[in-house]
């Protein structure tokens, strides 16, 4: 009748190992048909140095999705997220500022934003603040164009985020975790391992300890953000990384943090760094 803690541990370990094989991320490669030609995306990579003791290999969330969902990302004509990129381009060129300014007026083409998505969140050298793509956009919108902030979940912000992220498609995620970023990164790491809410679950509980397994019908990925923003079929819309965090934390029966809070920005930096080496996917497709 009585099972000691140790016999139990060996039992579950056996189960865990057996289970891991059955539900591995699918082996597949992602080559996207785009207007400008084909784009090879790195969706599997060796884990960054600081994770080496925890996991060997990092996988984009793309590997955990069904065949049909993965296929939608192979061709920009099929990817419903591209509509938002197009809208973002219109917005980029529009003279929306109070003095008739446009993004294009200061930055020329959107390709001037190449690399930004791959290296944010990052610490701004001038202000010392941790900045996401959204923070940079809002700084221009308010300080330089004289407009009300777009906020994080509005449609203009998402269109712009989609456009800007696309400029880094195919570049490896490469966020800095040392120097001025170190203290933000440490804070994000602490949040990642904190067991929040009445269900007492951390990000690691699902995306580190149980990736590859099924929680009800959901195949748990490593919770990487290299694919963000994502086009989510369920919402028929664009979802940013921190919006995803809101959903995940809510699912632990916790009081969530808000997008653009110091907590979620630090967490985004930490989670992004776990994906250093994976390609930015521009706008990915998830169910």
């Amino acid at each position, binding site marked *: 009748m009585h099972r000691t803690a140790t016999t139990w541990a060996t039992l579950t370990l056996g189960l865990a190992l057996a289970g891991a094989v059955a539900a591995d991320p699918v082996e597949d490669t992602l080559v996207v048909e785009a207007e400008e030609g084909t784009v090879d995306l790195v969706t599997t990579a060796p884990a960054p140095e600081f994770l080496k003791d925890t996991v060997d290999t990092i996988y984009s969330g793309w590997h955990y999705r069904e065949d049909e969902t993965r296929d939608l990302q192979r061709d920009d004509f099929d990817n419903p997220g591209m509509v938002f990129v197009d809208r973002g381009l219109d917005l980029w060129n529009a003279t929306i500022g109070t003095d008739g300014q446009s993004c294009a007026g200061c930055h020329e083409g959107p390709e001037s934003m190449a690399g930004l998505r791959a290296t944010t969140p990052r610490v701004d050298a001038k202000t010392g603040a941790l900045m996401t793509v959204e923070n940079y956009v809002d700084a221009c919108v308010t300080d330089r164009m004289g407009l009300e902030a777009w906020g994080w979940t509005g449609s203009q912000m998402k269109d712009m985020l989609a456009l800007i992220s696309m400029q880094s498609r195919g570049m490896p995620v490469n966020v800095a975790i040392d120097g001025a970023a170190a203290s933000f990164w440490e804070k994000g790491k602490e949040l990642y391992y904190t067991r929040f809410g009445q269900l007492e679950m951390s990000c690691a509980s699902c995306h580190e300890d149980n990736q590859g397994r099924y929680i009800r019908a959901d195949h748990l990925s490593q919770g990487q953000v290299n694919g963000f923003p994502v086009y989510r079929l369920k919402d028929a819309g664009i979802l940013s990384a921190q919006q995803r965090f809101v959903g995940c934390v809510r699912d632990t*029966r916790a009081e969530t943090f808000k997008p653009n809070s110091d907590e979620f920005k630090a967490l985004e930096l930490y989670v992004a760094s776990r994906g250093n080496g994976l390609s930015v996917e521009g706008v990915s497709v998830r169910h």
Partner: protein
Amino acid sequence: MTRQLCLAAAMSVTLATPALTETAPTDVAYTEGKIETSLTATPGDPANGITVMTTAALGNCVACHTIAALPDVQFPGDIAPPLDGVADRWSEAELRGIVANAKMTFEGSFMPAFYKTEGFIRPGGGYTGKAPAGDLPPILTGQQIEDVVAYLLTLKE
């Protein structure tokens, strides 16, 4: 059972309000993970135990556990050990302890504590993402725990 008691039991299930006869989550005594005495005066109902275990808004045990005796459950998770034969492995008092607060049996377990109201970091009001409006209720009532335990006790190989 008296008529009054039956009524009270029915109400505690439908309204999910703890009956007066329930031991409060904060008063539960664990001995090495076990809870020896029933949390309520009413014997557990295994049929309702199944409902609690398979309903997402209640126990949602099947999010993590498979149960061969319930083949109609769609997409059970595979995070945790299958519950088949669980009554051969654990006594009633042990099962009550595991369901109420598995962390008393398995240190640091991923399994949520279903009869606990304190000691959380940023608990929310259910799945609203907001802070709870008043006192945080346990995820399951004492009677629901007893119902689940009654069903688990039927799971013999």
